[in-house]
């Protein structure tokens, strides 16, 4: 789960990472009344998950209540325009009205998981305020990295080492160990897969403050913090994720593509290989769908309807290799799905093997369906039917 800036900064504050004074506002009037009570120079920032707010004109300044009302209304009037990261754009439901910092220098600080060393790794660069991907292309030597031993935990020397290795401006150095300690604390306490402060600002009056916050939480760990369930409800899902959730699938288990061959397989690896098989047979895929283990009749029917009603599929290629998944249950599910669905009917190509496969094939044959023996054969047949 990706967090919005105001949520990330709330977590920052809890672990002692300095953040600018701010107020989260849902309407122009709210923003105006906050600024009326708190005179000063404020920045109004759209709260969205996608990046590129500055370029899109969704970050503006205000010094009076009237200005705050006007810029908030302007920011919220239109959604974030589409960009490469999010081709659908994103509606804006709130803004963060924040203390305007007098920034002298900007740096970058983040923690994430390194798969190879199996440890959390902290990254620091003296180039802040730009995409870290861009920094790693243009100034790869500027990024200092340090793996943290989870048994020992974080100790300040790691922060000092990073500050010196990345040649951070002296103004940052004293504060960096505390900042890194904070993101390490947040990383474990709230189960974050990524915590990124970009930019980490050094103000003209010598304060080191997190000017932005990007936090991605591990979905599998959300149950440990009850409040996150509420946060999750309020966050936007993209269309594919919403469809997946509505069909009882995990949000990562369904993706749509422009083609006409619908697919369903059990297990993400086999589902990807099924897509590849359709491509190898010169077909175009309508979707990725991992039905998961233990697929029952109800689940299969929902998946069938999901593909038939929401993709361009002209044929549905079902590829099940049973481990935990029992072939006879899947077969019953397919038969029942077609018997009970009110959605339109498209031809099915079924490859079913593994646990209880004979029983599964018998059920399908009895219902007048045909099965294929291999994935390649199934893909070829499906592509043929989609083109017919």
């Amino acid at each position, binding site marked *: 789960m990706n967090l919005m800036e105001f949520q990330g900064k709330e977590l920052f504050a809890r672990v002692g990472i300095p953040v600018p004074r701010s107020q989260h506002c849902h309407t122009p009037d709210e923003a105006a009344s906050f600024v009326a009570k708190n005179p000063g120079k404020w920045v109004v920032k759209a709260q969205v998950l996608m990046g590129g707010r500055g370029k899109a004109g969704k970050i503006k300044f205000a010094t009076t209540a009237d200005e705050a009302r006007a810029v908030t209304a302007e920011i919220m009037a239109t959604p974030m325009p589409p960009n490469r990261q999010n081709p659908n754009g994103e509606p804006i439901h709130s803004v963060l009205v924040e203390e305007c910092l007098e920034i002298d220098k900007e740096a970058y600080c983040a923690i994430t998981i390194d798969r190879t060393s*199996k440890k959390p790794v902290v990254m620091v660069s003296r180039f802040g305020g730009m995409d870290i991907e861009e920094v790693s292309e243009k100034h790869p030597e500027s990024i200092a990295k340090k793996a943290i031993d989870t048994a020992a935990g974080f100790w300040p020397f790691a922060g000092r080492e990073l500050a010196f290795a990345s040649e951070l401006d002296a103004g940052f150095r004293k504060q960096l160990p505390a900042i890194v300690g904070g993101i390490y604390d947040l990383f474990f306490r709230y189960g974050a897969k990524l915590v990124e402060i970009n930019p980490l600002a050094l103000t003209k009056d010598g304060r080191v403050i997190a000017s932005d916050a990007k936090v991605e939480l591990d979905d599998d760990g959300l149950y440990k913090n009850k409040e996150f369930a509420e946060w999750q409800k309020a966050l936007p899902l993209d269309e594919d994720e919403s469809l997946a959730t509505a069909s009882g699938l995990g949000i990562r288990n369904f993706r749509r593509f422009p083609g006409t061959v619908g697919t369903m397989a059990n297990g*993400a690896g086999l*589902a*990807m290989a099924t897509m590849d098989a359709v491509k190898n047979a010169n077909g175009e895929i309508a979707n990725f769908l991992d039905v998961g283990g233990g697929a029952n009749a109800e689940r299969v029917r929902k998946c069938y309807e999901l593909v038939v009603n929401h993709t361009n599929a002209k044929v549905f290629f079902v590829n099940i290799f049973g481990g935990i998944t029992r072939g006879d249950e899947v077969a019953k599910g397919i038969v029942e799905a077609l018997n009970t669905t009110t959605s339109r009917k498209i031809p099915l190509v079924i490859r079913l093997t593994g646990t209880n496969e004979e029983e599964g094939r018998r059920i399908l044959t009895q219902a007048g369906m045909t099965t294929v023996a291999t994935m390649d054969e199934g893909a070829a047949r499906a592509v043929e039917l989609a083109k017919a």
Partner: protein
Amino acid sequence: MSIYLDKNSKVIVQGITGGEGSYHTARMLSYGTNVVGGVTPGKGGQKSEHGLPVFDTVKQAVEATGATHTCIFVPPPFAADALFEAHDAGITLAVCITEGLPVHDVLRVVGATPGMQIIGPNCPGLISPGKATIGIMPGHIFKEGNIGVISRSGTLTYEVVDLLTRSGFGQSTCVGIGGDPIIGTVFVDCLRAFANDAQTEAIVLCGEIGGSDEEDAAAFIKEHLAGKPVIAFIGGRNAPPGKSLGHAGAIISGNFGTAQSKIAAFQAAGVPVADRPSEVPRLLAQRLGVTV
């Protein structure tokens, strides 16, 4: 021989009285696995439905049975605890079938359980065909032989193994390492074990997009595995960049972890890469100089 598991390995099941644990214990027993007992806190002293002794703690189970291997079926919030308990009791190999462990739990476990080989989490387990299996793999598709198989995906492993068996290639050991971002046993660990296994003559490696385990494996093969041919397959060639498909691991970003970068790494290491699973037996036959 085989790697990690043979017919004498003494296995316990953590979560033996649960639905999945009980069902798959029966399957493991019928395959010939030496399952010697199970653990369910609060049910110590009882017998499982298979007639096996149930213990309250792993420590008791190990003391009473001399078990060295464990298979974990407990729900995600308790799985890391189960792994730490196994390590504390002296277990040397733990297969964690459970899916959905918080990644931070896994980070802590792998960082603090030296001496215990963890397979998974979120994996189908392992099998040394004709000898024993730990986990949830469908035993009937495997056949004893000389090919080592390593895979990040469960059902894709079955697909490839089924093709191997039908082509006459039996397997020494098949390890489903799991598709999560952090796993206990990676390709390189298995390759190292297969390199030292007399029964294994060649290795099939099924990777997928995301991470750099395949690239690491290619580097290891180039350096240390001259004697044994390796064939690779990479799933997810047609996945769109920046999207995550199912496995938490299968995320591609930039040029890192793409199918192209993995294929290139294997080719540079002299490892033929199959275009599709059905091509694996043919490439294997070519490398071994036999006909299928």
